[in-house]
């Protein structure tokens, strides 16, 4: 297990290095000058030169990249203030420390991701199981049709519709917003309920269809038929044999989905005006804000890589046939 984790961690570091280099150097391939963001009325070549110097953009690209990467481990000093490790620099746009901003936005994203995940797992797996259990029947056809409809919906369409209906028209829910769970658990829950449900709609459809198909596949496996032949009850066969066997592909996809959501659910955050990491990523692209973009990209990539390692480790627990070799 230890060797497995060390090997995967080493691989993850290489992947993150490649992502950081790609992001950094591709950023400079974009025909936009971050210095323009800081250029006031007198935006002549002399002013731009001063700003480039202030931002450290006058140095060679490789030197800038090295300083950036070294700063993550050793920290750096900037004119706007010190930047202790892990230092991802200061935002070009807001002059705020990147790491501090990421940590500030993280609770919103984590709340959205975890709450949404609970909803779509419960609904998706539940509906998938029911459809597989009643394969070919009305319930199966109904749930399959509903999941097809849901998978074709978009958050930016359902979101405003849900607000218009549930908040403005029927006055059943609160206007979506993020309130820290530490300041009011009730407001935290009430403020995120609509985003959770809307976010989960898309995922629910995906998980319904996947869990249905893998369960049906498992129900046709030899070991399940053997269990039936032994005279075990249908419920025991379904939950103990078929369900457990169907979990591996679901856990794989769930790990990737959750990792991606931890990196920021851009469309959901935009639709519901939630200040999370997804919104931060989009803003940093629009603002030509390299330090913030690098920080968010690296954080999101780390989340995805970490969750993948975690998923691989969980395989062994789910299926004893899998060995971490």
């Amino acid at each position, binding site marked *: 297990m230890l060797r497995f984790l060390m090997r995967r961690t080493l691989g993850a570091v290489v992947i993150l290095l490649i992502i950081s280099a790609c992001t950094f150097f591709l950023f400079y391939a974009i025909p936009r000058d971050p210095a323009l963001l800081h250029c*006031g009325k*007198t935006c002549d070549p002399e002013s731009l030169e001063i700003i480039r110097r202030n931002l450290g953009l006058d140095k060679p690209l490789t030197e800038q990249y090295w300083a950036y990467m070294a700063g993550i481990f050793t920290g750096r000093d900037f004119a706007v203030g010190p930047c202790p490790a892990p230092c991802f620099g200061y935002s070009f746009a*807001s002059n705020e420390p990147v790491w501090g901003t990421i940590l500030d936005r993280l609770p919103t994203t984590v709340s959205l991701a975890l709450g949404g995940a609970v909803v779509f797992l419960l609904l998706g797996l539940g509906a998938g199981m029911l459809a597989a259990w009643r394969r070919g029947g009305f319930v199966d056809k109904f749930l399959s049709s509903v999941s097809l409809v849901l998978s074709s919906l978009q958050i930016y369409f359902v979101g405003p519709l849900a607000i218009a209906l549930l908040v403005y028209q029927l006055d059943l829910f609160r206007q979506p917003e993020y309130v820290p769970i530490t300041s009011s658990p009730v407001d935290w829950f009430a403020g995120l309920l609509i985003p959770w449900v809307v976010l989960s709609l898309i995922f629910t459809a995906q998980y319904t269809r996947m869990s249905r198909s893998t369960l049906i596949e498992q129900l046709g496996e030899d070991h399940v038929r053997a269990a039936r032949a032994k005279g075990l009850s249908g419920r025991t066969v379904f939950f103990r044999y078929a369900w457990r066997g169907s979990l591996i592909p679901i856990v794989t996809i769930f790990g990737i989905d959750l990792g991606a959501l931890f990196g920021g659910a851009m469309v959901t955050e935009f639709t519901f005006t939630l200040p999370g990491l997804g919104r931060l990523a989009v803003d940093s692209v629009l603002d030509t804000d390299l330090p913030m973009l690098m920080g968010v990209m690296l954080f999101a990539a780390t989340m995805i890589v970490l969750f993948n390692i975690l998923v691989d480790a969980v395989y062994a627990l789910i299926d004893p046939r899998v060995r971490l070799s």
Partner: protein
Amino acid sequence: MRSRRIRRARPVAVTLAVGALLLGGCSAGGGGASDDRGGGEPAEQRSPIEFADAEASTGPAEDVPGARKGGTLRVYQRDSYAHLDPAQIYVQDEMALAHLIHRKLTHVKLDNDGTYSVVGDLATDSGRPSDDGRTWTYTLKDDIRFEDGSPITSKDVRHTFERLFAPFITQGPTFVQQWMANKTGAAYRELLPDGPYEGDHLPDSVLETPDEKTIVFHFSEPRNDLPYALAMSGYAVVSAEKDTRQKYDKDPLASGPYKIESFRSGKSMKLVRNPEWDPKTDAARHQYVDGFDITFNHQYEDSTKRLLNDSGEARTAVSFTNAVDAGSYQRVMREAKDRTVSGYQSFVAQLAINTDRVEDVRVRQAIAYAFPSKPYLAPYGGPSGGELAGGLISPLLPGYEKDYDPFGKLKKPGGDPEKARELLEKAGKVGMKLTYAYRNSNEEQKASIAVADALEKAGFDVQRKELPTDTYYDLIGDVDNGYDIYVNNWGHDWSSISTVIPPLYDGREIQDGGSNYAHVDDPEINSRIDEVRGIADPEKSAKEWFELGKYILEEVTPAVPIFYYKHTQIAGSKVGGLVYNNDMSNLDVTKLYLKQ
């Protein structure tokens, strides 16, 4: 003023509209019915803003009728504040905030009767000129303090102006620095390259502070607009003792009626009362509400829907600068007109014609006749987005004449292709190729089709060239840009045409990154600019500037007027004190209160 760049990001919509007297359609519930001009009743002619004396500059400010104290106002804003250091403030959102937390030597005050005047803010009056406007003297009021209780002295004012020369100050206005150094562009920095941080200071021949209360500006040329310029948020006072250089941008010391309790960039800001602010020293601001609870990331659609539905906290909410989105405008005016304010913004949309490439004035005039102003305005929301323009000068500026329309843009807002073709034939240029550059925004993409159609009907061969919105102004700002026509939006910095004609049409200002987008270099324009600048009498100066504008448009035609930008805002039903302020180009944030 810097051009308006239509995009979402904060550094672009740079605006300081200094308004004028008798503003039409700018009061609560304003906006008016639409007509063929596309934006309601046209404005009347303006008079110059009065420079007020000590009596008018003495606080407290006259009460807003019906106002009461107490409560916290919710504020929905689209963009977070990138800068809090006044020296770095030059965008509309930050200027609106600055009116609440920062104070300057002068301020443009809006009275209850709609009169605007430049009053002393920290200073006892709007300034005392001598030597034909080359010297200006200011005296500080008593009992003016920063939020930490320290008194504001001439030492702070000196420090405020000296730090504007430091290399890290790159985004604020540069007028006064350039006047002090008597240099154009960024060359003013040579006067004090490190700011006051390496022990150097501005010489007494430029800035004198003989005692704790007195500040004397000395300029080489008459600077009759100084009281206007000093009213810009970018010249608000910074504490000499507590200046933390770059860090000040995140944690400034307030001098206005409110101070920052907390700020989470990109998420929220809380403002609370500043107990050190003395209303007796302030002739313009109020401190009605206990505080402001601001959240960011509210797109225009979102803030409009919340405020229009007027439920829960939205009843006590407002946005300092978010406009009513074009899609909701009709519904807002139908259902909640009494909760709206509207008025002109400082920007005028105009089509610049590259005179280096389109050399024949008859061809430029043909473009002016053919241009379809009304179809161009339609994607911007029609009447909600703007009012069709007959001239290049904003209705907010003194000297503006409302019926001025030399190319019939108001009578024939769809364009006059026949007249245009006639001129083209005379010039022998029928079929002339025109490269038309435009931004790749939704509005511009839609408008470009109408523009190309109209110009082709007149006899041009139009080649459309789409440019990225973010770099649009940098691309058209290159002298050798390779395009024939392109739209730019220009807004005045204060209530004078002197902040419009020289930057746009002075041939001596042509340079890469400059704002003479048409590259017009006409000796008559250049010499008349110098003449009018020397006129001290505001009435005469305003008239002469407008006359020069007429010469430019009719005889040289380097640009085609398109429309004057307008702005409509909505508030919750419990919000009082809704007044549109032309100086701020949005509702007056200093007059807001919560009803019972």
